[in-house]
């Protein structure tokens, strides 16, 4: 069982005996300390997609999935090919299947991802909790702040915008927490 607040992209729920892949999950405080999770689901048998809402404490049947390590091999249009690092098998996903991690998918990335399989079929890919990405554009630091408390927008290679500390400069690598898309700090590499 999973609760509503535990849902995340890559989770597969069993609803009315059908497997539904969570493609997107947005957590929101709704009031009086209760919360909801808005999700985008895809039926893995029919391909039908729908949006749903769950209370944070709703109990849901999840499907135990197979997971393997994989890396991005190449991108071709809307198609993303990942390679199983153990046997070099290639798997293809489209942009919608990996909507939640798409902001951080870019050519040349070396992250060891987790490929998620349902009945032998690749249905999703999850990124590591921390990833490193290069900043391709950001404004210069406004006041020379080094505390990390003042934030500014920065653009990554694939166009994704993220809020970073004011001291980050163009071409620097930054660490990002993929659980909440937050800036963690300057990469050590």
């Amino acid at each position, binding site marked *: 069982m999973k609760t509503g607040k535990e849902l995340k992209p890559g989770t597969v729920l*069993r609803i009315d005996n059908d497997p539904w892949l969570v493609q997107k999950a947005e957590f929101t405080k709704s009031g009086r300390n209760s919360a*909801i999770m808005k999700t985008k689901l895809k039926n893995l048998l029919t391909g039908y997609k729908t949006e749903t*809402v769950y209370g944070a404490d709703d109990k849901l049947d999840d499907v135990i999935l197979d997971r393997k390590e994989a890396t991005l091999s190449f991108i071709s249009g809307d198609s993303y090919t990942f390679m199983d690092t153990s046997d070099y098998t290639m798997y293809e996903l489209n942009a919608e299947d990996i909507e939640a991690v798409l902001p951080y998918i870019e050519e040349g990335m070396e992250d060891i991802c987790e490929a998620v399989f349902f009945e032998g079929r690749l249905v999703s890919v999850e990124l590591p909790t921390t990833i490193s990405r290069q900043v391709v554009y950001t404004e210069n630091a406004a006041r020379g702040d080094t505390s990390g408390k003042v934030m500014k927008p920065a653009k990554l290679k694939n166009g994704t915008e993220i809020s970073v500390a004011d001291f980050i400069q163009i071409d620097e690598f930054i660490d990002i927490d993929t659980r909440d898309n937050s800036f963690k700090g300057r990469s050590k590499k």
Partner: protein
Amino acid sequence: MNASWDIFCCVVDNYGDIGVTWRLARQLVAEQGLAVRLWVDDLGAFVRICPQADPTAAQQWQQGVQVCQWPADWQPTPVADVVIGAFGCQVPPAYVQSMLERPTPVLWLNLEYLSAESWVEGCHGLPSPQANGLRKVFFFPGFTTKTGGLLREASLLARRQAFEQDPSARQAFLSGLGVQPEANARLISLFAYENPGLASWLDALATDSRPNHLLVPEGRILGDVQAWLGESDLAPGSIARRGALTVQILPFVSQDEYDQLLWCCDFNAVRGEDSFVRAQWAGRPLLWHIYVQEEYAHWEKLEAFLDHYTQGLSAEASAALVELWRAWNMDRDVGRAWQQVLVHGSELDAHARRWCAAQAAQPDLATTLVQFYRNWL
């Protein structure tokens, strides 16, 4: 035969949950002719807003609503056509099982909290398929046509208008509460949670050039009022004067009487959800004490509402109002912010009327719920 509706209300704290569900239940009966049962786990809270109710009755009829004590030990009962779990409360598992076994499907709605945040529009009306095969639907009240709207009885604004146009009715109502304000006094109602910002506001009211008469229904703010006055044991009927300010404690009044109180006042400080909405229907400037949430999530809700509410105001009036609301909710200098708001008093008065009219032009919550059910059938 009209549809039957069951509304489940778990009283978390205060009177917002029961206030909203009782109001909704009454309206569904009175205006839609529906058979409504209201299940309440704390009849003591219910009696505070419906004083004629019996706090010990397992079930009773009040204003056409069958009000039932929600027992800890749930007994089998026929399932209604429409089931509303208010504010995420957990409907009894045995009742849910009965919903599954019912030959005809049940519309199961999760009525959520009120918020002006933009995500509400994207979540309103979405299904929530459960592991057991039932489908809940999330229903969100709100301030736009892409939400479920606000609770508003069909006759509410006409009743308010009639009351406003009848000075004797106003006088009689206030007299009934023992309120006799000076002729030119600014009448203010105060219903709030504990608030450290109160002292600076009362300081400002006490040093004002115009008399202020503050009406405080019994509630959580009373301790702060007493502390500022340097008095203890204030009770309904108590009156204290400090400079230009008269403070008067009122009894906890019924929902209908509270509406009239709001209509009588020039300015209303309200809290939570139910009184917040009623103050908007009063068409008077208001100050909202929002329910505090973890990680300051309530600040975003506050700002989201202000973004909506201040549209159409001049930049100066908007800034003054926003600063007052922030000061009240973020422990800042309320007194100074209040003085800025007074500068824009007439503009804020007119704006409150416009806001009320604009909201009243949208379908109300009870109507949208019934319409949603009809579409679902």
